[in-house]
C-alpha cells in the first residue's frame, strides 16, 4: 500500500486565503442580519416584510448573475482552444453547483416574500418561471456531469450544455422590462444604474450583496478543492489497484511456483489450502459434493 498517491496539500497561503474569505463572509452575514433586523427601519408600505430585501436580491444576484455567469464564462474559456484547461471545467462545475443552491434559496425566499405581498407563494410570472427553468436547466447540467465519461469529453459536453442554458440568463434579467410582470423591476441593476433605495437600507443592501458574494466565493473555492480531490480519487484508485495487483502477482510468482498467476494472468491464484474446507467449517462454495472428494480437481 506504499504506492497510495496523496493529493498535493493546499499551500499555507491558499489555506489562509480560503479561511479568511470564509471568516469575512461569516462576519458580513452577521452584520447583515444585525443591520437588517435591528438597525434599519420598517418600510412605509411593506412594514417588516421589507427586511427580506436584504436576503432575496442578494441571493438572486449570486445565483443568476455571479454563479451562472461565471459558469458560462468558464465554459466558454474551456471551449476556446487556447485557454482549454480542466481548471475552467472544474470552476464551471463548482460555480453551477453553488449556483443551484443559491437558485433554490432565491425561489424559496421569493415565495416566502410573495405569500404576504402578492397573496400567493408562486405566481406564473415571466421572471419566476424563467428562474425556475434556469434551475432545471442547471440540474440537467449536474446530471450530465454525473455520468461516467472520459474527463475531456465530459468537460466539453458539459461546457456546451452550460452555454445553451446560459442563454436563459439575459432573458431572465430583462423579463421584468419586456413583459409586464408581477415581479418588480430591477432595484439596483436597472437600466439607469441608479439604485432606487436610500439611507441605511441602501447600506445594508450593499453589505448583504457583498457578504453573499463572499459566501459564494468561499463555497466556490471549497467546492473547487473538493472537485480536484474527487478527480485525484477517481484516477488514483485505479492506479493504486493496478499497482497492488501487479505487486501481488510478482511477489506470489517469485515466492512459490505453485501459486503463480492464473491462466488469464490477471492475478495470483488462490493458495491451495484455502480451497480445502476444514471439517468444522461450512462449505459455502459447494465444493464438497455428494460422493466426491473435498479437494477440487485443480488442487490435486
Amino acid at each position: 500500500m506504499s504506492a497510495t498517491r496523496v493529493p498535493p496539500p493546499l499551500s499555507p497561503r491558499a489555506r489562509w486565503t480560503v479561511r479568511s474569505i470564509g471568516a469575512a463572509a461569516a462576519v458580513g452575514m452577521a452584520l447583515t442580519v444585525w443591520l437588517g433586523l435591528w438597525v434599519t427601519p420598517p418600510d412605509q408600505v411593506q412594514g417588516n416584510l421589507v427586511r427580506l430585501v436584504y436576503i432575496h436580491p442578494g441571493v438572486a444576484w449570486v445565483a443568476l448573475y455571479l454563479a451562472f455567469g461565471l459558469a458560462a464564462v468558464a465554459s466558454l474559456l474551456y471551449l476556446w482552444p487556447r485557454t482549454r484547461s480542466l481548471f475552467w471545467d472544474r470552476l464551471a462545475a463548482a460555480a453551477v453547483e453553488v449556483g443551484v443552491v443559491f437558485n433554490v434559496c432565491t425561489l424559496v425566499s421569493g415565495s416566502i416574500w410573495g405569500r404576504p405581498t402578492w397573496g400567493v407563494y408562486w405566481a406564473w410570472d415571466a421572471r419566476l418561471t424563467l428562474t425556475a427553468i434556469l434551475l432545471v436547466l442547471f440540474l440537467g447540467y449536474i446530471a450530465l456531469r454525473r455520468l461516467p465519461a472520459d474527463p475531456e469529453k465530459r468537460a466539453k459536453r458539459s461546457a456546451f450544455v452550460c452555454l445553451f442554458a446560459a442563454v436563459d440568463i439575459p432573458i431572465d434579467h430583462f423579463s421584468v422590462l419586456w413583459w409586464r410582470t408581477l415581479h418588480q423591476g430591477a432595484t439596483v441593476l436597472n437600466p439607469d444604474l441608479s439604485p432606487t433605495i436610500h439611507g441605511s437600507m441602501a447600506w445594508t443592501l450593499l453589505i448583504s450583496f457583498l457578504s453573499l458574494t463572499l459566501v459564494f466565493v468561499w463555497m466556490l473555492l471549497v467546492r473547487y478543492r473538493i472537485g480536484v480531490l474527487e478527480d485525484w480519487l477517481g484516477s488514483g484508485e485505479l492506479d493504486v489497484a493496478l499497482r497492488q495487483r501487479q505487486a501481488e502477482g510478482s511477489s506470489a510468482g517469485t515466492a512459490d511456483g505453485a501459486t503463480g498467476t492464473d491462466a488469464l494472468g490477471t492475478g495470483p491464484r488462490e493458495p491451495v489450502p484455502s480451497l480445502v474446507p476444514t471439517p468444522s467449517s461450512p462449505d459455502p462454495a459447494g465444493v464438497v459434493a455428494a460422493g466426491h472428494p473435498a479437494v477440487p480437481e485443480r488442487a490435486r
Partner: protein
Amino acid sequence: MWRDTLLVAGKDLRIEARSRVALSQVVPFGVVALVLFAFALGPDRTRMAAGAPGLFWLAVLFCAVLAVQRSVAVESVDGARDGLRLSGLDPAGLFLGKASAIAAQLIVLEVVLGVGVVLLYGARITTPWLIVASCLLGTLGLAATGTLYGALSAGLRVRETLLPFLLLPIAAPVLLAGTRIWQAGMAGGTAADGSQWLRLLVVFDAVYLALGVVVYGPIQESA
C-alpha cells in the same frame, strides 16, 4: 453548406419515408396524447377550447422529443455517426440538415394535431396567419434545440432518459410563446397580443440556430 443541408435532410427524410416510424408511431402518439388530455379535462367543451393552445404545444413538445430520439437513433447503429464525420460534410450543413428533417416531420405532425384540436376540442381559429407563423417559428426552435441536445446525448447509454430532461426545459420558451400566440389567434384573442411572443420566438430561433451552426462540429467530436 446548403448543399450538405439538402443532402442530410434528404437522407433523414428518405429513411423516415421508408421506415415510416414517424408516421406510424410518432403522429399516432400525438393524437393519443390529445385524446388523453381531453379525458383529463373532462367533457366540458369551453374548458377544452380554452386549454387547446397549451395542450397542442405540449403534444408537439412530447412528439419532438420522440422525433429527436429517432433522429439520433438512426445514426447510432452501424457506425453511421463516424461515417458522417468521415464524409467531409460541413458540420453546419449537417446540423441544418438534421434540424430541417426534424422540422419537416414536426410540421406534418402539427397539421394533424391542429386539425385534432379543432375537431376534438372545438378550438375556433380567428387569425390563421398567427397560428401558422407560431407553428413555423416554434418548430424551427424545437428542431434546432432538439438537434443540438440530440448530438450532445448521442453515444450516452442513458440517452433516452437524459434527453427529455435536458431538452424539455430548454424548449419551454417555445411552449410558452406558442401557447400565447395561439391564444391571441383564437376566438377571444387579439392579434396584437401575439406579436411580442412572435418576437421572442424569432430571437429564440436565431440564437439556437446560430449556436448550432457554430458549435455542431465540436459537439460531434465530444460525443
